[in-house]
């Protein structure tokens, strides 16, 4: 398992949201099938989710901090790819967690357990240094995840096509956002859990 690294945060974003951060790590290889053990864990997790929990999840401390951040960033706080609310909403709409393969299922379970939104990107092997950053577009102010000069995704959005996890991906980069007020160790734990689930598959 690769080391968990801290990404850079542009000065504009840092000054606007003190305490914000990015953590990421790399997992060798591309996507794979969901192992039976993880499928079972997801089934058990799905069975524990009730309608009442779906309502309460947004009020839980960690989820609330990410929600507040989305509101402060001008987003609809209820919308956000990979958030705990998004995972639970998916569970309610689909009636369970259908196996979607690794890394999707690994990050679903890790997010469900910790409340931390995680994203997976497909990257080339050339990119193996600490180059992921949180950056704001100077002209529009849009906050993005970047790899060097390339846009990986808009924050809380879907990956840019170039960074989608595909069979051609040489390695995967798992990224987590540290919202202001969230203890970075929890974010790192979420990443470690997701990586462990990816690696053991």
């Amino acid at each position: 398992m690769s080391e968990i690294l801290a990404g850079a945060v542009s000065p504009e974003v840092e000054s606007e949201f003190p305490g914000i951060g990015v953590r990421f790590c790399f997992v060798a290889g591309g996507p794979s099938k969901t192992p039976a053990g993880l499928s079972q864990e997801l089934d058990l997790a799905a069975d524990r989710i009730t309608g009442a929990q779906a309502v309460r999840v947004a009020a839980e401390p960690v989820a609330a901090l990410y929600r507040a951040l989305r509101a402060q960033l001008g987003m609809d706080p209820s919308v956000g790819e990979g958030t705990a609310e998004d995972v639970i909403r998916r569970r309610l709409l689909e009636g369970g967690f259908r196996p979607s393969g690794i890394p999707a299922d690994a990050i679903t379970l890790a997010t469900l357990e910790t409340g931390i939104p995680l994203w997976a990107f497909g990257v080339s092997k050339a990119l193996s240094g600490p180059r992921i950053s949180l950056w704001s577009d100077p002209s529009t102010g849009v906050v993005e995840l970047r790899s060097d000069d390339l846009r990986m995704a808009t924050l809380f959005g879907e990956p840019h096509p170039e960074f989608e996890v595909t069979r051609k991906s040489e390695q995967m980069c798992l990224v987590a956002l540290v919202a202001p007020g969230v203890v970075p160790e929890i974010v790192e734990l979420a990443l470690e859990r997701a990586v462990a689930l990816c690696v053991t598959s």
Partner: protein
Amino acid sequence: MSTTFAATDRTPSPALAEDAILHAGARDALKAQIARIETATVALVAEAHPLALDLAPVQPGPPRLMSLGNLESRRDALALRLEDARAQLTTVRSRQDEARAQIELMLSDPQSYRWLRVSRDELGLPGCGHWHVRPRLGLIGMLAGWWHVKISSGCPLICDSGQRRALTVL
């Protein structure tokens, strides 16, 4: 561990940069207000459960560093939404209180509220039972003025186990 940004990366839009410097305190206050309002809204929604509050949609947009004006309008929109949610909850709660008071009146003087029916739904309770003012012994009670409140326990098939039982019987 972390990378540093090149000098070219440090050039935010002039409007945002000026805004950030001149109104740093105001921006921080607005962001704190936005966070507080959002937290209060979520808490209200959780408190209202199982009643589903109809929250007005918030203008969606990409995640961005907002100007002071945008932060203000965002704060106002969220505050209005919270106010609207509170009003909805208050209206529903007052209707439920009225229904509770109505049941008290029905129980104390059934004769004055003949045939009146209050459902569990009107009280915000789960299930499909109701309180119904009916005559004792049917027609005889109706003619004799023997009225009472009958409490229905609701549909037995509403719960999961009930459904299973019904299926087993079938």
